[in-house]
């Protein structure tokens, strides 16, 4: 059954327009924001630079090794979603989910071209005619334009937006860019134009698991049956005695984008978009009955209301407080690590084959693959030393200018990862056991910047 939601006006509809403006605005505008990072670095505020393997977000620059920031962000998003769900049910589904926002936009276009619910149903049933074809063609054309724009905005996050825009228009952009746009345009067109509520009901896993975050105090869109029943048509001047407020006008059903009747109670399909509240409130105003026959309410709150207690929704509950605390904890850890993020890092991988090499002078040698991550945008001179191994000598393979010494110097280029093979040898008699804990310390000349890495030094034992 194709659903033709009727146009409504009211508080929640207005809120949804504003949220649509905000979310779509963020999506389309963000890639065009500029952010100066100095010469040689991209000046796009938000950029996923895959060839350069960097992630830029305003003042933050993330290396592939630091992808845990992204993991932390996803964890925060998940816990935040749990928090909101435990408070106000499927608010994400009803207001902010891209599927909802784009479907709303597509329905707005449909309504603008083909008219409201009644007109659309008539047009659907009408035989094929020139006007029907032109109507449909115009609608599909605008949908397609939006879809291509959606895919088009996506690719701007992965390259310099102004350059890519010119490339795209002059057909010089990469096949990857065009195919990404085509795929996203196709999904937007089909999900927003045709599949709509079926995505939420059949494809999305979230409706299936969201019940785990809700309890009897979570607010959802609720029909107040105690007030509404017994429902029935109402003629002006009739008495409201011994009947419910529901005039059975079916406006809540007509407005529902999911095609359900909220008066049947909580249902899997309901995304709590609250459009039925607006529809019902308008009718209640017309017949002169109080608002909120359909309203945001919780099961617990309704029970209290029926027993005469008018306390509203309980927001402070163990569940919500736990989600909030977990969210703050993850956020706090993220913030702490971000503030203390070092722009110099080392990584050491010990050779395991062979474990160690005995040299002719009796000393023992271990090999290491040694990586220096210089995250600063300037050339630096660094000195390497080893703690916990007396008499250690260090040699860098394949670097003539880094001579064998106790503390070799390195010059590293800006914003680069350097990989070296390092040979460390030590006299046999300083090795008390077959495995000795050592620490590589890399320090910058003339500053106090240091980075260290704990490793071990293996030998034959005594």
């Amino acid at each position, binding site marked *: 059954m194709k659903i033709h939601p009727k146009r409504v006006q009211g508080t929640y509809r207005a809120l949804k327009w504003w949220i649509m403006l905000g979310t779509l605005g963020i999506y389309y505008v963000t890639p065009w924001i500029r952010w100066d990072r100095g010469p040689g670095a991209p000046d796009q505020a938000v950029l996923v630079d895959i060839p350069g393997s960097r992630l830029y977000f305003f003042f933050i620059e993330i290396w592939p090794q630091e992808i845990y920031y992204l993991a932390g962000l996803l964890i925060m998003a998940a816990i935040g979603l749990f928090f909101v769900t435990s408070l106000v049910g499927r608010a994400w589904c009803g207001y902010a989910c891209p599927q909802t926002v784009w479907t709303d936009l597509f329905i707005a276009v449909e309504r603008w071209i083909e008219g409201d619910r009644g007109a659309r149903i008539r047009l659907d049933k009408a035989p094929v005619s020139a006007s029907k074809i032109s109507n449909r063609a115009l609608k599909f054309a605008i949908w397609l334009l939006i879809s291509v724009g959606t895919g088009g905005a996506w690719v701007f996050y992965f390259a310099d937006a102004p350059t890519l825009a010119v490339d795209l228009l002059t057909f010089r952009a990469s096949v990857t860019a065009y195919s990404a746009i085509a795929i996203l345009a196709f999904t937007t067109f089909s999900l927003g134009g045709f599949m709509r509520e079926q995505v939420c009901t059949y494809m999305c896993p979230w409706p299936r698991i969201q019940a785990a975050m809700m309890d009897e105090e979570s607010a959802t869109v609720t029909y107040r049956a105690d007030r509404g029943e017994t429902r029935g048509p109402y003629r002006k001047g009739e008495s409201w005695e011994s009947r419910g407020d529901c005039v059975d006008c079916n406006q809540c059903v007509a407005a529902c984008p999911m095609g359900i009747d909220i008066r049947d109670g909580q249902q899997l399909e309901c995304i709590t978009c609250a459009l039925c509240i607006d529809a019902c409130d308008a009718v209640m105003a017309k017949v002169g009955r109080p608002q909120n026959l359909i309203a945001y309410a919780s099961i617990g709150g309704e029970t209290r209301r029926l027993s005469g207690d008018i306390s509203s929704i309980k927001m402070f509950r163990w569940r919500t407080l736990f989600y909030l605390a977990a969210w703050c904890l993850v956020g706090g850890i993220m913030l702490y690590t971000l503030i203390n993020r070092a722009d110099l890092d080392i990584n050491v991988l010990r050779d395991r*084959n062979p474990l160690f*090499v*005995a040299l*002719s002078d*009796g000393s023992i040698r271990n090999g290491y693959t040694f990586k220096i991550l210089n995250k600063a945008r300037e050339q630096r001179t660094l000195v390497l030393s080893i703690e916990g191994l007396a008499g250690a000598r260090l040699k860098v393979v394949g670097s003539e200018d880094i001579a064998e010494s106790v503390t070799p110097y390195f010059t590293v280029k800006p914003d680069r990862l350097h990989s070296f093979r390092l*040979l460390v040898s030590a006299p046999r008699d300083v090795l008390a056991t077959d495995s000795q804990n050592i620490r590589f310390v890399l320090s910058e000349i003339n500053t106090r910047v240091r980075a260290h890495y704990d490793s071990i030094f293996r030998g034959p034992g005594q």
Partner: protein
Amino acid sequence: MTEQPHVDEFTGVQTTGHEWDGIRELDNPLPRWWQWILWATVVWSVGYWFVYPAWPLISSHTKGFIGYSSRGELRDDVAAAKARQAGHLAKLAKASLEQIRTDPELLEFALAGGRSAYNVNCSQCHGSGAQGFAGYPNLNDDEWLWGGRLEDIHQTIMHGVRNEDSEDARVFAMPAFLKDEILDANQVEEVATYVLHLSKQQGDSAASARGKALFLEHCVACHGDRGQGNAEFGAPSLNNDIWLYGGEKAEIVATIANSRGGVMPAWGRILDAVTIKKLAIYVHSLGGGS
């Protein structure tokens, strides 16, 4: 006789007819879009028959319009990789070993190629970590039978050791002192004691004094007066704790009595000149190269 299909009374939907503890499964149709996608993929798959190799024939198979084959793809990939490497390979062919070693870009390329060539050709005897085994030298340390300079390593790989393949192979071998009746069993024992003494392990001092005299008579020509060895003759140094055939006294006695003579093929007859260069650079870089 066909049974009347059961219809669920609440939903009015036909059931599958199966019953589990009083629970019946509704026989709802699949969503329309789902079915369309299924049929679309079926139609799409028919296209594969014509575009790609598909149907087996008696002695061959249908080739498909675009002439694709996975072997052909591999061939193209290998050709493309070869083309990408061509510039560096040409430079490697012209450059001397020393030039390669001091040019960071060429060195990186040679090391990468040398590592893979080593894993294919050398690891069977010398070990995947070049750590060696008894009779197969460790290539990581600074003890070299035939010299650890780049040219020495290159020469050894190119022509091999004690083989029939190359006239320039390393040929020197140690006499079997007992088998060839140069020394008697007692004397071999005494020389072994002195050799152990040289490598700063325990040794009977009286026996080692007698062994020293024999050593100076029979061994110094190759192994040197202090047991320092001589790469020219492939004579290992005896004054350290690195032993190719084991450092226990019995093993040393066996070596002196019967001699040892490891063999390596002349890789110059098997691999091309550039690969040999890469191997020399790689082995030299393992840490023992001088």
